[in-house]
């Protein structure tokens, strides 16, 4: 097995630009001692302030390093990955040293152990009566919270949205806390997001009213849960905050096996947790899937999802009328680089696809769009920066990478993957002239 990552994909894994630079300096055999590879692993020792041991498990693309860096992957791991990507054959094939073997062994037992724990949990006999009672109590709590939320919403509209501009964050937070107390954390985070909307851009009152209206629709829908089709009822429960944990999804979610193409991913570092949002599309099914991964800052994601790779795997979807979020049940073969640009559509049909999903789940947030043959056009007079397809349909863009898009295009059409939320498109991955470029993350959302 060789390393199934390209250089650009490895750079994409780097936590920051400094790590990229440092890793390039380390991507030379001269910087390493006892470099070696086996069927399952690549390893080496790198002289830093001490001698660090770095290794890669080829099947899962997992990396480990004994250095004290809080960054993940560290520069040593990135350097070793780069070397393995570019000069795999030059790394001598050797028996695995003891420290590599023991890690491989530990990884293996951890993975199987985890799977077994998940399975055990799914199998564990439950006290059905107690569980039903708890669910009933929570339902009552939520309904009471909704009554209070509706009064608060009505007050907002009675007094006028012009007034909320003067409100501090505490105004929104207090209402959000009440919803947390009512066991509806999903609604609570929607209320906090309302507070961030205020004053965020010129037409914020319109967007705020949109969001308030959709929140009111959600509270209306929860009261009629029993009259909704089960998949949509599952959506409403999830949006309110009654979430399923991974074991329940594994046990009950619809699964789909396919060759999944990882088309874009975003990494967001919160205060304590790093989140990866990766959009996948099935080569055969054409289904999209959003895989979210969370990890404490400074640790690694359980399974690396790298934009520009294809990954034969079985996914399980969270129950939904418009299934999007999924988890990886099992990888059926190692990931490998995705060759050419993915197939994309024109703007109208891409938006029609989104409208279909919205018709199934009206509270759907952002979803994956893959656009082909679109040209970025700079702002001109009242027209904002946009992506224009052959028909002339101009899709508004969000983010700060407009100039980079323009440079990558040079007036020529591009293929793009990114997120559309019904308001603006956030481009994430660009294919231009046989190259794939991930747009530098972050910055200037709306």
């Amino acid at each position, binding site marked *: 097995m060789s390393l199934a990552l390209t250089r650009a994909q490895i750079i994409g894994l780097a936590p920051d630009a400094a790590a990229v630079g440092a890793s390039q*300096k380390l991507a030379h055999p001269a910087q390493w001692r006892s470099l070696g590879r086996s069927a399952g692993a690549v390893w080496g020792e790198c002289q830093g302030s001490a001698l660090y041991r770095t290794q890669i498990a080829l099947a899962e693309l997992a990396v480990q390093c004994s250095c004290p860096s809080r960054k993940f992957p560290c520069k040593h791991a990135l350097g070793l990955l780069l070397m393995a990507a570019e000069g795999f054959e030059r790394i001598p094939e050797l028996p695995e040293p003891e420290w590599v073997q023991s890690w491989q062994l530990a990884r293996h037992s951890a993975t199987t152990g985890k799977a077994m724990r998940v399975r055990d949990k799914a199998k564990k006999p439950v006290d059905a009566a107690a569980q039903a009672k708890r669910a009933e109590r929570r339902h009552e709590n939520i309904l009471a919270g909704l009554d209070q939320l509706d009064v608060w919403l009505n007050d907002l*509209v009675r007094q006028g949205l012009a007034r909320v501009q003067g409100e501090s964050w505490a105004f929104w937070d207090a209402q959000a806390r009440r919803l947390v107390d009512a066991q509806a954390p999903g609604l609570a985070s929607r209320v906090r997001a309302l507070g961030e909307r205020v004053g965020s851009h010129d037409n914020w009152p319109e967007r705020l009213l949109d969001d308030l209206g959709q929140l009111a629709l959600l509270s209306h829908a929860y009261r009629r849960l029993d009259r909704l089709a089960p998949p949509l009822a599952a959506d409403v429960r999830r949006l309110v905050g009654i979430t399923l944990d991974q074991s329940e999804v594994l046990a009950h979610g619809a699964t789909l096996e396919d060759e999944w193409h990882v088309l874009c991913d975003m990494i967001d570092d919160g205060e304590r947790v790093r989140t990866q949002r990766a959009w996948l599309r099935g080569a055969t099914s054409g289904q999209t899937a959003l895989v979210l991964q969370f990890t404490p800052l400074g640790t690694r994601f359980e399974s690396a999802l790298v934009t520009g790779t294809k990954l034969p795997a079985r996914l399980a979807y969270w129950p939904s009328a418009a299934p999007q979020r999924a988890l990886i049940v099992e990888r059926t073969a190692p990931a490998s680089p995705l060759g050419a640009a993915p197939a994309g559509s024109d703007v109208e049909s891409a938006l029609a696809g989104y409208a279909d999903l919205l018709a199934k789940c009206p509270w759907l947030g952002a979803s994956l769009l893959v656009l082909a043959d679109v040209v970025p056009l*700079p702002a001109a007079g009242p027209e904002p920066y946009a992506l224009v397809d052959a028909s002339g349909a101009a899709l508004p863009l969000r983010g700060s990478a407009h100039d980079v898009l323009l440079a990558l295009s040079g007036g020529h059409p591009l293929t793009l993957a990114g997120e559309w939320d019904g308001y603006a498109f956030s481009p994430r991955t660009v294919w231009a002239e046989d190259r794939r470029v991930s747009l530098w993350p972050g910055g200037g959302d709306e």
Partner: protein
Amino acid sequence: MSELLRAAILGTGQGGDPVSERSESPADTLIDALGELPRERALLLRAGAHALLRRAGRVLPRRSPSLPLAAAESLRASSPPLTDALRMLFESDEDLLAEALERMARARVRLAPELLPLALEQTEPELRARLKPVLGARGAWLAAQRPEWTWALDAASGAALPSDFELRWSEGNAAERRGLFTLARKLSPAHARELAVDAFPHEKADQRAAFAEAFAIGLGADDEPFLSGLLSDRSAVVQKAAARVLWRLPGSALAQRMLERARAHVRYEPSAARWHVRLPAEPLDPSWEREGIREVPPGTRQLGQRQWWTLQLMAAVPCASWLPDGDSDPQLLVAAARKHEHAAILLDGLTQSALMRGERAWFAPLWDAWAASDLTSTLTSEPRAALGAQLTPEEITARAAQLVADDRLRPLLSHLPRPWPEALALRVLAGISDLRLSLRDAIPVAALGIPVELLPDSIPLPDSGQVEYPLRAFVRALEHFQQVAALRRSIAAETVP
């Protein structure tokens, strides 16, 4: 604005007609089906349904893709490792960025498109000049998309002012305008002089003084009337700045007056190879002060006022004016200066004068004189560093052994032109490989100065965790050296012509 939104912003408590909040859209029909609702609730649910409808049925404006197509490239594409390295260098390392861009230009390699916006946003003239040859056809195409980027389309020679000059000159802050004025002096001294004539009535004194100082660039006889006028500027700071520029204008009336003043107090006697110095009497002549001589010596240096005035007189006149007729070798004069009772004044004055006027023949002899003495300079904090920056590779090679043995190595090396001559580079490398601790401070400078083809693949290092200070600090510095060396080598490998 829809009636629904208007009502929501003003508040339903303000009255208004609830019926007008309703339209004939399917969203309203949907909400109507829910029956009688309180006004606020109905408004919110309508708003939600409208939002959904808009998100699902977004009507997009039409635009025609009217951009011209970028031309095909004639330069090679940059490799992914080079692109990654450049992205980092743009953020962090001007020295290495300059080296990388020069190598790219020589190898006819262009920047990757995704780096072009970053490149076009640069404003520093030297960096812009280095970027121009590597922007490629795509860079030229992109530059045409924004007025503030069109500098990249200017004549490749850089002989013209950038096209955004007027805009930035009229709108820039004081520091930016000083930079622009300097640039204008470099490219078109006459144009810069016109700018100054227009601008001076409106500028503050420190800005006027800065512009006056910039006249030293591209200084010519045409500048004399304007600068002479400044000798009666309302600010003494501007007067002095203008005077000190006029000192450097050969043939100007002031330069002539300064020469007479200097000769009245300092004289070189060729037959005896001796300097004669007669310090001026106190108090300072007011006309001297108006014309650029400062009364009080700077800092805390133990230099008497009369010595200080003499030193400035020396700096005010060309070194060559001391050479006996027909003689062009400064060696004897510098050697005699070093032996003189007022050696500090003579050497310092000659050094300042030579550096200001670019009198090349004096650099190496003065460098040697400072190296051989323990005098300190009043005018230049590191006279040998300043002189060293002007030495030719041959002059540096001849002094390599002396340089490496010097205990003030770092400032000396950091000013030398890069890349260093081979003889010096090899000596420094040998010292580093021998773990000579005195070289520690110079290691970061060496990482940049040693020609890339002489950089070793690796230097065997002890484990810095296992050794004590000061060797540990040395090893740490060397680890950094190896990283910079690896980066430079990889840039060089990606830019082979």
